[in-house]
C-alpha cells in the first residue's frame, strides 16, 4: 500500500491535508467544488418543488383523503373540494388533442424523414421548430377570437348534423368547450410529435428500407411495414412527450375550455382542466383550505406529467440505444 501511496503522491493526487491544500491552491479543486454546487442547485430546486407541493397541500390531503379524486363538487363557498371534474377535463382534452395530433404529426414526420429532399425537409423542420416556439397565450388569443366563433357558427352545427345521434356531439353549440380545447391542444403539440418522430425515423438504418424495397415493396409499404415498426418505440415516446405537454398546458386551454367544473358527456359542453382552474382561481383563493386544495391539484398535475415524461424518456432512450447497438 505504502509504495502505491507514494507513487500517487508523486503525481500530486494523494489525499491528506497538505495535498488537499496544494490542490485547492492550484484552483482545480475549488472549481470542481463550485461547479458541483451549482449542479446540485438543480437537484435542490426539484426536491424543494416536490416538498413545497407536498407540505402546502397537507390540509386538503388530510381533510379529503383519497375521496378528493372522485368527488364532483367544487364549491369554495361551502369548503367542498373535489378534483374529478378537473381530472376529467384534463384527460378528455388531452386525449382529443392526441387523437388529432398523432396521425397528423406522424404523417408529417414520415414526409419529412422519408420523402422530402434533404433541403426541403430541413427548411420545413425549421418552420416546425418556430411553431413550437410560439407562446401558449398566442394560441389562446387565436383560439378565443378565431377558432371559437368558427366552431360556434360552422363546425359544431355541421358535426351535430352528421354525428348528432351520438352523445358526444349533442347540446347547444357554445363555441367554447372540451372539443375546442382539444383542437387547440392538438395544434400545439403537433410540432413536438413531428420533430421527435422525424429524428427517430432518420435514425432507422438504411438497410431496413433497402431490404423492403429489394423485396418489391412500394415506397409506402417499405415505410409503413419496415421503417415505422422499427422506430415504433421512439414514436410512442414522442407521443408520450406530447401528452405530458398537453396535460400541463395552461393558457390556451384556459381561454377556450369554458371554465365550468362540470362533467358533460358531450364534447360541446364547457369543462375545466387542472391547469386552467389553477390559472383562474389561485390568485384569488381565500382561505387556507381552498388554497391547499388548489395546491393538491398542482401536485396531481405534477405527478401525472412526471410519470408520463419518465415513460417518454425511457422509450426514446431505448430506441436510440437500440439503434446504436445495431450499428456497432
Amino acid at each position, binding site marked *: 500500500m505504502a509504495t502505491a501511496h507514494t507513487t500517487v503522491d508523486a503525481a500530486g493526487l494523494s489525499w491528506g491535508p497538505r495535498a488537499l491544500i496544494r490542490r485547492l491552491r492550484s484552483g482545480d479543486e475549488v472549481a*470542481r467544488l463550485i461547479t458541483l454546487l451549482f449542479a446540485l442547485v438543480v437537484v435542490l430546486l426539484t426536491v424543494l418543488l416536490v416538498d413545497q407541493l407536498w407540505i402546502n397541500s397537507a390540509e386538503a390531503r388530510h381533510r379529503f383523503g383519497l375521496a378528493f379524486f372522485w368527488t364532483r363538487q367544487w364549491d369554495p363557498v361551502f369548503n367542498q373540494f373535489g378534483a374529478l371534474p378537473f381530472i376529467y377535463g384534463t384527460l378528455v382534452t388531452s386525449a382529443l388533442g392526441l387523437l388529432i395530433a398523432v396521425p397528423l404529426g406522424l404523417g408529417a414526420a414520415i414526409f419529412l424523414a422519408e420523402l422530402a429532399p434533404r433541403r426541403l425537409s430541413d427548411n420545413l423542420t425549421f418552420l416546425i421548430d418556430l411553431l413550437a*416556439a410560439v*407562446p401558449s397565450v398566442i394560441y389562446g388569443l387565436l383560439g378565443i377570437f378565431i377558432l371559437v366563433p368558427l366552431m360556434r357558427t360552422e363546425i359544431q352545427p355541421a358535426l351535430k348534423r352528421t354525428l348528432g345521434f351520438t352523445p358526444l356531439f349533442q347540446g347547444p353549440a357554445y363555441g367554447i368547450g372540451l372539443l375546442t380545447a382539444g383542437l387547440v391542444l392538438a395544434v400545439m403539440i403537433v410540432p413536438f410529435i413531428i420533430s421527435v418522430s422525424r429524428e427517430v425515423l432518420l435514425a432507422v438504418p438504411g438497410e431496413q428500407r433497402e431490404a423492403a424495397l429489394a423485396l418489391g415493396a412500394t415506397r409506402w409499404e417499405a415505410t409503413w411495414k419496415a421503417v415505422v415498426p422499427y422506430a415504433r418505440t421512439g414514436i410512442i415516446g414522442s407521443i408520450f412527450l406530447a401528452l405530458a405537454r398537453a396535460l400541463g398546458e395552461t393558457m390556451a386551454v384556459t381561454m377556450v375550455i369554458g371554465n365550468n367544473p362540470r362533467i358533460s358527456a358531450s364534447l360541446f359542453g364547457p369543462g375545466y382542466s387542472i391547469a386552467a382552474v389553477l390559472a383562474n382561481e*389561485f390568485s384569488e383563493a381565500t382561505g387556507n383550505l381552498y388554497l391547499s386544495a388548489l395546491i393538491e391539484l398542482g401536485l396531481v398535475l405534477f405527478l401525472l406529467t412526471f410519470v408520463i415524461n419518465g415513460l417518454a424518456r425511457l422509450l426514446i432512450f431505448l430506441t436510440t440505444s437500440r439503434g446504436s447497438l445495431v450499428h456497432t
Partner: protein
Amino acid sequence: MFWRKSVNVLMLSLTGLCALVAVSVLFFILGYLVYHGGKDVNWDFFTKLPKPVGEAGGGMANAIVGSSKLLLLAALFGVPVGLLGGVYLAEFGGRAVPFVVRYTADLLNGVPSIVIGIFAYALVVMPVHHFSTFAGGFALGVMMIPIVLRSTEEFLRAVPPALREGAMALGASKWRTISSVVLPAASRGILTAALLALARVAGETAPLLFTAFGNRFWSPGWGQPIASLPVMIFTYAVGPYEDWHRQAWAAGLVLLGLVLITNIVVRTLLSRGTSPQRP
C-alpha cells in the same frame, strides 16, 4: 399491383398534406396577428401606460419594461446556475452525480409551467404575503436552468479534445484550460442556447399569474407586482372590452415578433457551421 400503387401514391400524398397543414399553421398565426394587431402597434403602444377602461388609446409601456425586468432577473438566476452546472457535467463529473443531475434537470424541464408558478408562490410570495417582481423572475429563472444546463453540457462536449490536450500540454491547470480554452470555444453555442431559453420563457404566462401578478401602472420597485406582456395579453383577451381586444392583438404581435425573430436569428447562427474557433 395497381391497387398497391394507388395506395402508395395516396398515402405518400397524405403525408405531404400533413406536413403542409402543420407548417401552414405558422403562417395562419402570423397572418391573423398582423391583420388584427398590425394597425395598433404604434408609437403610443410602446410609450404610453394603459388608459382607464372606456378611454381610447394608451399603450403597454409598463408591460414591455416589466417583461424586460422579469427576463433580466430570470437570466441573472438561470444562466449562471445552468452554465456552471453544465461545466460540471461536461468537465468534472464522475458517474453518479451527473446522472442524478441530468435526470432531475429533465424532470424539471417537463414540469408544467403553472406548477412552477405554484412553487415560486410557495417559496417567494407566501413568506412576504405579496406578489413581487422577484417571484416572477425566480419562476422564469427556474424554467431556464434545465435548458441552459443541458445545452451548455452539449456544446462543451462538442469542443474537440485536441484543444483541451493542447492547453494541458502547455502546462495549464484543468480550470485554466476550461476557462480560457474550452468555454470560449463553446461560447457562441452557449450564448445562443441562453437566448433561446430566454425567448422560451419570455412568452410564459402561467408562472407569472400569481407571482409577478400584474400592474396597470409602473411598478414602484422590485418587491412589487409588475405587468408583463403575456399576462397583459391574457387579461385583455378574456376581458369584455372591444378596445382591450385590439390591444391584446397588438401585444400578441409584438410578443410573437420578438420570440420568432430571436429564434430565427439564433437558429440561423447555430446552423451556419458550429466550428468554434472562428472569431
